[in-house]
């Protein structure tokens, strides 16, 4: 895959919190219409990576290239402005507001005389595009199931017409059927040509939906695999570092030998 196809590229991103190096020299590439799963054990740096991309924490060093331009992401607003949308694990929905109100929160149509009709129409269009199973948009989000809430959160992130969407543990709190629903949704995002970064520690989900798996271990890259030619054992080995992985050994040899490109 050539570099110009990548909508988002990270090179050598490093982030430390005090004496702790949360991310060291991390690379990541996402192409349009590609689902990249970022996996790793607890403390591997997945959440830190999300926070850097969504503008919660700036990176200490390294470059972020978005649509062939080197960019900085100092604030969440900057990330949204670039076209990087994030769906947080806790979804950040207001339970007392209904679906339409949540979808358009902070970006209402016609601020001084809300255009409810247009907002509702656009909500339905959006939800239909995602084949969302939400019976009515005029109920408080509190009465929706976990999968439906995830759908609302994802739909909301699509309103700004993003290029890259980051899903933080989208299936963590869901049952079997709801997980399947969300995975369908992820595939639909890919069909729409978005780059999707999915943070997960559920191997089954990753293998079901991702094109590429990037493994983080202790804040460093520990291999990038194409899903179609990697086994679950290999992935788990890379995540845990149990059988000091081949890819990592090769990388280490090449760095020592000075042949790294």
């Amino acid at each position, binding site marked *: 895959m050539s570099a110009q196809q990548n909508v988002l590229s990270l090179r050598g991103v490093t982030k430390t919190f005090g004496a702790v190096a949360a991310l060291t020299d991390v690379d990541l590439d996402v192409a349009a219409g590609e689902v990249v799963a970022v996996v790793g054990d607890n403390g591997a740096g997945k959440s830190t990576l999300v926070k850097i991309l969504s503008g919660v924490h700036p990176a200490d060093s390294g470059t972020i290239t978005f649509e062939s331009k080197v960019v900085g992401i100092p604030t*969440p*607003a900057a990330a*949204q402005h670039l076209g990087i949308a994030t769906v*947080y694990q806790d*979804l*950040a*929905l*207001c*339970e*007392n*507001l209904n679906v339409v*109100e949540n979808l358009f*929160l*902070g*970006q*209402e149509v016609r*601020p*001084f*005389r*809300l255009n*409810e*009709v*247009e907002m*509702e*129409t656009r909500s*339905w269009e959006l939800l239909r595009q995602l084949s969302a*199973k*939400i*019976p*009515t*948009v*005029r109920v*408080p*989000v*509190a*009465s*929706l199931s976990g999968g439906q809430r995830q759908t609302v959160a994802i739909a909301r992130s699509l309103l700004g017409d993003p290029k890259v969407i980051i899903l933080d543990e989208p299936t963590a709190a869901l049952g079997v059927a709801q997980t399947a629903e969300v995975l369908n949704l992820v595939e639909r995002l890919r069909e729409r040509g978005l780059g999707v970064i999915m943070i997960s520690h559920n191997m089954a989900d990753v293998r079901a939906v991702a094109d590429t798996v990037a493994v983080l271990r202790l804040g460093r890259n520990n291999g990038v695999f194409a899903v179609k030619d990697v086994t679950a054992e290999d992935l788990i080995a890379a995540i845990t570092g149990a059988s000091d992985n081949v890819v990592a050994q090769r990388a280490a040899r090449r760095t020592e030998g000075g042949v790294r490109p």
Partner: protein
Amino acid sequence: MSVTDTAKDLQDERLLERQGVRGVLDGVIDRARGGDLGMIPVVAGLVVIWTVLQILNSYFLSSANLVNLAMESAAVGVIALGVVCVLLVGEIDLSVGSISGLSAAIVAVLFVDQGLPVWAAILGAVVAGAVIGWLYAQVYNRFGVPSFVVTLAGLLAFLGFQLWVLGAKGSINLPFDSGLVFFAQLAFVPAWLSYVLVAVAAGGLFATGFLHARERRGAGLSFKSVSTLLARSAALLLALGFVVWYLNQTRGVGWMFVFFVALVLVMHYLLTRTKWGRAVYAVGGNTEAARRSGINVKAVFTSAFVLCTTFAAVGGILAAARLAAANQSSGGGDVNLNAIAAAVIGGTSLFGGRGTAFGALLGIIVIQSISSGLTLLNLDSSFRFMVTGAVLLLAVALDSVARKSRTSHGRA
């Protein structure tokens, strides 16, 4: 019905079909069971209180007494409207009584002692109220001090400020021939105009409903039928018409009460039909989610505090005008708790994100009914405090129980 001719928002087969008056009733019962009580407790409470008080004293529901009740409601009602704003963002203002007293004192001193024109005196007091709210918001936003502590400090500090402004005399009478006192005591809407206003209200309800329905129909969404809209407007016309007719049997509807209702309508519009209103409910429901949606949360808190204290100042001016005096006990006693109780009884949640402007209107009528009824029974303020305290406790308990029920029924 095939999918093609069903409105875009009613296509899901899981939706229960509900039509007509019966459907509306079923919906209300459903929501109440789930803990979404809305206006039910306050309306039920009002019926019970009015029935009991009427049995105890047959003068209670007389036209003359209800005219008075409406006039008495306006001042504290305006304060309660401000309390609704601050409760909606999940905060509280315990100092509204002191601020209303201070504003009464400022008006009296500027108008009577300093000889300024009445509008300048009013402006001075309202600006003072707004500045206090801005100060609260600064302390809250910058230092993160809980609002009940900030405003508790304000309760004491502004009471002291009120006493200092009033000086040694401790009491200033407002001249009876001033427009302010006339407005609060003697200005009543002429009978013909009151009926015109009722007709305008009913017509306005129908017109907005009709335009909205037409717009929804054009967009292929479900819409209310013309007959439903007509029925709704007719019901409003009859109900309001009857109330106004009954009040017109004696003095009629006071302009001060009309002013209060107009403020309620303005706040209702701001809260339900503007981006700012949405932000207020969002901040009250989930502050972090609101922040991540790009809402300027600090500005929303500031606006809520400023509105609350400004309304408290306006209420204080109205109370002083009604009494034709500002003194050391202005805004003291039960004003504070009555205003908060009115907001809570009217269905505004202490936990934020839930409540309406109309709640302040209904809530203050409940509170004022109790107060008026007990006064008619020749019970002194000791009983009034006890009963109002009990009603407030009941309202808050109901709010907490409803909240639990909402959580268990997935309505949060």
